[in-house]
């Protein structure tokens, strides 16, 4: 009979890039402490080269993801919700130990994140009807507008609501057929690190979702200046951070959306589940087709 207590196996948290879990090329880590200041884990301190690799992965995955049927994207987003549900306990435990507010707050955040994925799973094959249109024109043309994917979108997730914030920004982007490179919550990076496991098991094609943990001051300017990025979605940014994003983005005219959402607003379903949150991440294409001639 063994008298020594069993040692728990601690998880090594890594990045999620191109469907795999690489360590940061920089070899750096960041310590994560719980609400009492006790060391809980280490996560990767992602570098600009990790970001570069993630954009390469996202770019090569973009045409294939946009070409999938909307119905298939619905299935995959719903599958992500299923997988998140299966990991609800783990997410709740991690969030409760690192984010002030305890267990009840954490459970509420995880439940809302699952619902958000389900909501955008529903929108994937329906937003086209809402954002697109059959236009009335005074000429013999059949004229219609369709919403097409923008391409590669970089996401800066908010520091608070580390899981719900991530999901709320990610779901509209990939729902529309874009691929994403996401920088997770800087203050509470564990949810981002674990979310890769949800994507990896939910049939999300490699490169469609890429998740980085790291520091904003290092990565925001690189993200904004990267010419192969088509759009940026951010939330919980300071004025200075917003300026960095907008200045860098001006170079190749990428679209920047910085949302101001705080505290309870993340849980506001009517607003947060609206299809108009997809609108900044699509290109509208209008087609004039001769008719009646």
């Amino acid at each position: 009979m063994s008298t020594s207590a069993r040692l728990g196996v601690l998880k090594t948290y890594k990045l999620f890039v191109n469907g795999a879990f690489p360590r940061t090329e920089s070899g750096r880590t960041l310590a994560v402490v719980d609400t009492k200041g006790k060391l809980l884990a280490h996560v990767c301190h992602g570098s600009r080269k990790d970001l570069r690799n993630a954009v390469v992965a996202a770019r090569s995955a973009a045409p294939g993801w946009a070409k999938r049927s909307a119905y298939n994207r619905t299935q995959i987003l719903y599958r992500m919700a299923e997988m998140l549900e299966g990991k609800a306990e783990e997410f709740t435990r991690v969030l409760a130990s690192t984010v002030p507010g305890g267990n009840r707050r954490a459970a509420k955040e995880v439940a809302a994140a699952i619902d958000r994925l389900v909501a955008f799973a529903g929108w994937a094959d329906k937003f086209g009807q809402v954002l697109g249109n059959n236009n009335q024109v005074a000429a013999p043309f059949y004229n219609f507008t369709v919403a097409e994917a923008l391409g590669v979108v970089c996401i800066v997730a908010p520091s608070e609501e580390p899981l719900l914030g991530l999901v709320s920004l990610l779901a509209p982007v990939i729902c529309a057929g874009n691929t994403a490179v996401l920088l997770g919550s800087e203050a509470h990076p564990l949810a981002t690190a674990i979310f890769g496991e949800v994507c990896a098991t939910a049939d999300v094609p490699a490169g469609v979702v890429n998740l980085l943990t790291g520091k904003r001051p290092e990565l925001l300017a690189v993200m904004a200046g990267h010419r192969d990025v088509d759009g940026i979605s951010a939330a919980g940014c300071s004025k200075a951070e917003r300026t960095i994003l907008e200045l860098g983005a001006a170079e190749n005219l990428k679209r920047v959306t910085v949302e101001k959402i705080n505290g309870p607003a993340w849980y506001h379903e009517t607003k947060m589940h609206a299809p108009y949150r997809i609108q900044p991440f699509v290109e509208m294409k209008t087609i004039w087709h001769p008719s009646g001639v």
Partner: protein
Amino acid sequence: MSIRTVDKVAVEARAASFQTRSIKNESKRQGLLMVTSMVDLTTLEGKDSAAKVRSLCQKAMLPDAALPHVPSVAAVCVYPRWVELARELLAGSGVKVASVASAFPSGQVDLATKLVDVRAAVQAGADEIDMVMHRGAFLSGQYEVVSAEIRAIKEACGGQHLKVILETGELETYDNVVRASELAIAAGADFIKTSTGKVQPAATMPVTLVMLETIRSHFLATGQMIGMKPAGGISRAKDALHYLVMVKETLGDAWLSAKWFRFGASSLLNDVLLQLHRLESGQYTAYYDVTES
């Protein structure tokens, strides 16, 4: 005929060691410019047309209008039927016209037909002939047949540069690569070249190293310099820089010029240009920053 055998493990370890060098900033810039000047910009497809050859020649003379300090490439490599057009377009530019001939890529026709092919390309104005070695004869041990063919084609070249493609992907062993290299050199090759680009694996660092070492032995024994052209599968600027390190450390500075070393490539040039743009602007680049072709 050589009776040495190649130490596979040592060759592969040595080749891998060239990939660990860090080449940054100014040395990277110089290296990239050198790579550009060594490129044989290639199009060898069934769908090649006059328009394709025109755009290729344009790109060969002025790789990037936004980077006027970038030199022109070493040569354009086309099928014999496009030599005349390329000759006309490149007149006065210093860019050479190379043509594959001798029933590229298989070489499976009789010698008389190969000679017609070669003479036609020379007549049309090719400066350099890239011939394919008779691998069938080589692998069945008919070295005399292989050697006689190369000698005959060398004569048909009438003083123009002859590159002999060994198609190392079909030669099975490094010992065969050494044997084929020695045979080609003895029969009059000015350059030895790894591959047609139509067989996988094409150029690899170990196989190129084996060929470079053969060139070195020949030089030490006779004082005669032979050129080297890895071709196929080198599509990234970083890989090309590693090849330059290998050439420098195997043959020395004398070989670091387009006169003695070439890259047979089609997509490599664009990656080099993207890297140069990155060095100029400090920002990560996009596929649309360079022209296609």
